[in-house]
């Protein structure tokens, strides 16, 4: 049975700071996945630019960590600490999988984490400019 925890956080002015995601960013900026890290890790950085101006429209970072329960715990803790600073967030426990999504504005940042056992997938993106469809 899925247990769903939905937390909608509406925060007052002043929450949008560069340090708003500091706990998560601190983990993401660590040299995870280094040669001597002892666990499997893949870090993907996608930069999407405006084809005409070359200006960065969106920057996405995805970190996939396998077989590291300790780091998985640290990420969950970091998300729990940073979620209250977001404009809006959603936390779910789907069986053994913990999923959280948080959104900050100016610039728009979307952070998502999915942890199943020792497998962590963190996806964070910064949208500098909304794309025209």
């Amino acid at each position, binding site marked *: 049975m899925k247990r769903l925890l939905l937390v*909608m956080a*509406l925060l007052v002015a002043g929450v949008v700071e560069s340090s708003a995601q500091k706990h998560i960013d601190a983990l993401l900026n660590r040299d995870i*996945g*280094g*040669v001597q*890290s002892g666990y*499997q*890790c*893949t*870090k*993907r*950085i*996608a*930069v*999407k*630019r405006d*084809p005409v101006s*070359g200006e*960065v429209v*969106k920057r*996405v970072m*995805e970190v996939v960590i396998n077989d590291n329960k300790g780091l998985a715990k640290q990420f969950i803790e970091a998300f729990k600490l940073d979620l209250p600073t977001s*404009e*809006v*967030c*959603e936390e779910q426990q789907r069986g053994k999988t913990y999923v959280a*999504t948080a*959104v900050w*504005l100016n610039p*728009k940042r*979307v952070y*998502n984490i999915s942890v199943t056992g020792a497998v962590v997938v963190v*996806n964070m*993106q910064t*949208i500098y400019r909304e794309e025209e469809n």
Partner: protein
Amino acid sequence: MKSREQIAELVEKFLDGRTTNSEERELYAWFGSAEVPEEWSDLKAMFAWYEAGMPEQKLSRQAETPRSRRSMWLTIGSVAGIAASVALIITLILPDVDDYVDATHLKHQQSDIYKGSYIVEHGVRSDDLSYIEGDIEELLERADNLEQRADELLAWADI
């Protein structure tokens, strides 16, 4: 039996192409006999050859005529074939070349769009966009889905 003079006349007639079939058979028979004077030995060989149906010439004509005709048709056919092939190749390949140029241009444009992207796997960094482009596009697609979810949350929160 004809005299040598009559045979000589017939030979003249033969060489002029005026002999009848029976006269020609007569000549073949006469020159086929053993009584041909030595000075006519060339004629004897010639009539033996004619009597045998001009084997070499016939062969060579059979071989040459069709060959020359064939080669003429082959030449015409080859030229036409080559022209048609070239036209076909141009027709078939040019759009492909255009497609290739377009695709290359598009790929180049796409690479520019993703400039700065990279992947670190097992401690190895790869920023060769031609190699990682597929992964980058998949990642952006996942990011788009998450952004959609984020927009839904913002809409619910009326932000």
